């Protein structure tokens, strides 16, 4: 459409300007023609005037001026006004010429205005023809008229085309009067307007039908147009066709999809954007197919009870992904409550009554949740009730506890009341038994139970009655009588009936208690006799001990003085040892100094050895000199011999020289030998030195050992001194203890006398008991049961009895007094040991 519009515009512009150009060219040409005509006529008049002037022979200066002015005029230039005197013959000529010049100038100015307006395309001018006169006015009037006749049709056409270019095509025609070429222009313009108007109407109809009304069957009528206009119309039809085809197919596909039928993929080929539409369609179909397959699979899985299956949202995008996600979340919403309901029911069936479901569900799921919660609460309450009652009745013994039946409904309530019945049937017999046991525990033996019970409860009743019988017999009749007698100092009564189990044992124990008591009293009676005699012996022993202790004390004093002496000696020892230690320390420093000196000596001897070696070298040189001197002397002797008699004196000298050489060699040899010996001695000295050093080291080590020994002796002596001090204090304590011993033994002597008296009293007390006459093995024979009743006056009888018994005891020593002869046991050991502990 845009392209079409542009093309139309171009066409319009072309059609407007072409005639304008043609018109402008024609006007220009006409203007030029008129000017030429005017100029030519002007030129003719001037030339005629010039000829008259030239005919005058006497050309004055005025004529010259006029001539010059005319010459300018002939060249087309503006005239100069010629000023002449009034008397001049050419005055009127000059005045006319000036007048002509003014009119020409004014005309030219208006013509310039007109030509400028025409050249600028303006056909109306601000020129008034009445300003001029004559033919000047005519020319201008005609020119204005012509311009009006050209300008009006052009303006009308221009106006119409302007409207077309602005899209204002109302079917309005150019109605202005025109002639010739302007008429043709007017007609062409009008036919173009008609064509454009038709075309636009056709296009508008097709567009409205196609775009706004959706009628793709509407086409433009190409037969109405000619040439390229017809092609334009058929082109529009082609556009509509190419749009309509894919749109129809798309509509068809969308209709199918909308009615739930997924059509097959589009296989036809389209171009450009239509292909994109096709691909989008195919994509849409694929996605829909996949989505349907996915949803079908999910539906199948759900109907098969596979609630864990979910759609794969990764495969989709956009809304499809959202659909799958929504389906998944829907499944989650369904499956979550179902699963938790299943879990809870499973837990309840396994006996795990868990907490109430707190998760929030919606709609029917919430109903399921509420029902489940009710079930859980009921089961929980029931279990708690049963638990409470069990704990109360069985473990805590609260037999009044019952379940609250009103809390439950229907069969749950029956269950609760059944439990209460069970508890009731258990509790009543228990309460009766409990009452009886309470009474028994309070020391009351009630009458037998006479009520009738069934089964095991009757057994309980019988057992309680039997228990009551046994208790009555044991506590009141039989056992009670025996204990009563014993309480009244008659130890001869016994429990006689037979009982079962522990009761029999109790009977035995009571009997044994009474028998033991009896036996014990018999023994105490005998022992009291023994104690009496023993205590008199203790008394004697204690007196002897006291004497021994005082002797021991004097001996200890002697020991103490000896220890003092020993202590002073030990101290002396320690002092001596310390002195010895100091001496050894000084000996050690002396030996160390000796070692140092020996080392220095060793160095000195080595130096001597070195000097000797140097001297030996010098001696060797002397020896060599002696040898050479000897040779010289011999040579001199030879020379002297050659010289014969003349050399005799020289020979003597040579001989002497030789002798000297020999002697010096000898002396050198001796010296060398002596030095060798001195080196040998020095070496020896070094050896001896080393030995001495070794010995000094040994001495040093031994001195050190002696030092250590001395310090040990010193420490030992000090320790000894300390030990002696300790012994001394121990002896002092011993002395004190011995003194105390003496005192204690005296005390024990008097105490044993008291003891004798007490034993006699005890014997009298025992005699008050009635005992069976069976002889006891511990009775030393001195205790006559027959006399017991007679000795009711206790204190009077005590003294004579004691004496008698003691005498008899002396006569029969082995029976019960073996250990009493041991003097160590006579001394009270308890006191002794306590003193020792203090020590």
């Amino acid at each position, binding site marked *: 459409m845009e392209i079409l519009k542009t093309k139309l515009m171009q066409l319009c512009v072309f059609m407007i300007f072409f005639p304008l150009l043609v018109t402008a060219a024609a006007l220009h040409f006409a203007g030029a023609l008129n000017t030429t005509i005017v100029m030519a006529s002007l030129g003719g008049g001037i030339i005629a005037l010039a000829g008259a002037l030239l005919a005058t022979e006497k050309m004055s200066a005025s004529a010259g001026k006029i001539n010059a002015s005319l010459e300018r005029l002939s060249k087309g230039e503006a005239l100069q006004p010629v000023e002449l005197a009034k008397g001049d013959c050419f005055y009127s000529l000059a005045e006319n010429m000036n007048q002509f010049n003014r009119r020409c100038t004014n005309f030219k100015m208006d013509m310039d205005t007109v030509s400028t307006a025409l050249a600028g395309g303006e056909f109306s001018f601000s020129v008034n023809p009445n300003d001029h006169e004559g033919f000047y006015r005519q020319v201008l009037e005609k020119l204005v008229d012509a311009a009006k006749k050209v300008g009006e049709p052009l303006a009308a056409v221009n106006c119409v085309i302007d409207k077309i270019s602005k899209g204002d095509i109302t079917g309005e025609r150019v109605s202005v009067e025109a002639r010739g070429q302007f008429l043709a222009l007017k007609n062409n313009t009008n036919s173009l307007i008609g064509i454009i108007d038709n075309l636009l109407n056709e296009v508008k109809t097709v567009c409205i039908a196609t775009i706004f009304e959706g009628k793709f069957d509407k086409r433009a009528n190409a037969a109405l147009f000619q040439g390229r206009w017809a092609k334009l119309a058929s082109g529009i039809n082609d556009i509509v066709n190419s749009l309509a085809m894919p749109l129809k197919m798309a509509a068809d596909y969308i209709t199918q999809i909308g009615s739930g039928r997924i059509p097959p993929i589009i296989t036809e080929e389209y171009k450009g954007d239509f292909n994109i539409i096709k691909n989008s369609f195919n994509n849409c179909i694929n996605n829909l197919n996949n989505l349907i397959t996915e949803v079908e699979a999910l539906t199948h899985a759900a109907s098969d009870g596979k609630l864990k299956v979910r759609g794969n949202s990764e495969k989709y995008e956009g809304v499809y992904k959202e659909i799958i996600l929504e389906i998944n979340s829907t499944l989650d919403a369904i499956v979550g409550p179902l699963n938790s309901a299943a879990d809870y029911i499973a837990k309840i069936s396994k006996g795990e009554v868990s907490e109430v479901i707190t998760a929030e569900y919606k709609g029917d799921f919430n109903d399921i949740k509420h029902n489940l919660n009710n079930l859980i609460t009921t089961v929980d309450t029931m279990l708690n009730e049963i638990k409470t009652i069990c704990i109360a009745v069985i473990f805590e013994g609260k037999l009044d506890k019952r379940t609250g039946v009103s809390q439950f409904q229907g069969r749950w309530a029956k269950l609760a009341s059944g439990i209460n019945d069970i508890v009731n049937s258990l509790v009543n017999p228990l309460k009766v038994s409990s009452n009886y046991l309470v009474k028994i525990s309070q020391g009351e033996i009630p009458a037998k139970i006479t009520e009738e019970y069934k089964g095991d409860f009757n057994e309980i009743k019988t057992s309680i009655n039997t228990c009551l019988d046994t208790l009555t017999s044991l506590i009141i009749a039989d056992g009670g009588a025996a204990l009563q007698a014993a309480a009244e100092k008659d130890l001869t009564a016994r429990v006689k009936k037979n009982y079962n189990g522990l009761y029999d044992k109790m009977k035995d124990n009571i009997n044994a208690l009474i028998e033991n008591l009896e036996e014990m009293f018999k023994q105490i009676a005998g022992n009291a006799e023994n104690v009496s005699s023993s205590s008199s012996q203790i008394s004697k022993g204690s007196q002897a001990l006291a004497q021994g202790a005082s002797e021991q004390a004097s001996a200890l004093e002697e020991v103490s003085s000896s220890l003092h002496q020993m202590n002073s000696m030990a101290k002396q020892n320690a002092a001596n040892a310390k002195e010895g230690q100091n001496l050894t320390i000084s000996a050690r420093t002396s030996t160390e100094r000796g070692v140092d000196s020996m080392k220095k000596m060793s160095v000195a001897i080595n130096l001597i050895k070195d000097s000797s070696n140097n001297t030996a070298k010098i001696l060797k040189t002397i020896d060599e000199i002696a040898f050479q001197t*000897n040779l010289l002397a*011999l040579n001199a*002797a*030879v020379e002297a*011999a050659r010289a014969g008699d003349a050399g005799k004196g020289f020979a003597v000298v040579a001989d002497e020289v030789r002798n000297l050489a020999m002697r010096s060699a000898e002396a050198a040899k001796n010296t060398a030998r002596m030095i060798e010996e001195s080196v040998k001695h020095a070496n020896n000295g070094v050896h001896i030195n080393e030995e001495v050093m070794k010995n000094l080291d040994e001495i040093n080590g031994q001195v050190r050992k002696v030092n250590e020994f001395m310090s040990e002796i010193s420490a030992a002596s000090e320790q000894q001194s300390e030990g002696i001090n300790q012994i001394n204090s121990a002896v002092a304590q011993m002395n004190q203890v011995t003194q105390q011993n003496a005192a204690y033994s005296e005390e024990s002597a008097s105490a044993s006398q008291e003891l004798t008296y007490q034993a006699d009293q005890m014997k009298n007390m025992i005699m008050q008991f009635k005992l069976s006459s069976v002889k006891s093995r511990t009775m030393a024979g001195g205790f006559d049961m027959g006399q017991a009743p007679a000795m009711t006056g206790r204190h009077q009888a005590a003294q004579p009895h004691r004496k008698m018994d003691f005498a008899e005891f002396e006569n029969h020593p082995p029976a019960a007094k073996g250990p009493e002869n041991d003097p160590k046991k006579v001394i009270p050991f308890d006191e002794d040991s306590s003193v020792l502990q203090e020590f």
Partner: protein
Amino acid sequence: MGEEMHRGVGSNVNPVSVKKIDGGKFLTFYLGKEEYGIQILKVQEIIGIMEITPVPRTPDFIKGVINLRGHIIPVIYLRAKFGMPEIDNTEQTCIIVVKTRNLIMGLIVDRVCEVSDIATGDIDEAPSFGTFVNTEYILGIGKCASKVKLLLDIDRVITAQEYDGMSQIMESIN
């Protein structure tokens, strides 16, 4: 006098004949434990042992040559000449330079002793040991305070043949 002695020794072939040897001064030296003497006039000088340059293809008793102040002289190892075992040089080993038959040569001795004056009466003729032993190079035996000194005839210690050989060698060297 040298000519006379030479003649005397040369004519003294018969061991039975007794010939008196004139006394005089002798330079005595030791080879081993024996003391020998050389007539002092035969002696040129006495020098200490010095470096000896051996000469190839010479008899064993020729040790080599020495440079004695510019003169090259042969050195004879007397021990080898007398059939004694060779020993190492000591500090006392000396070379006695002698002149015999115009040839100057050195004699290596163990130790030089003294210049001894031996009277004619104290010199006995060399004893005869029969024909097996050639004693012609012994001039005589000097007696001196219970000691015996073998006085050598140095001209005969080196035989004429040896002398010629040595002369040739020395000529070739010089």
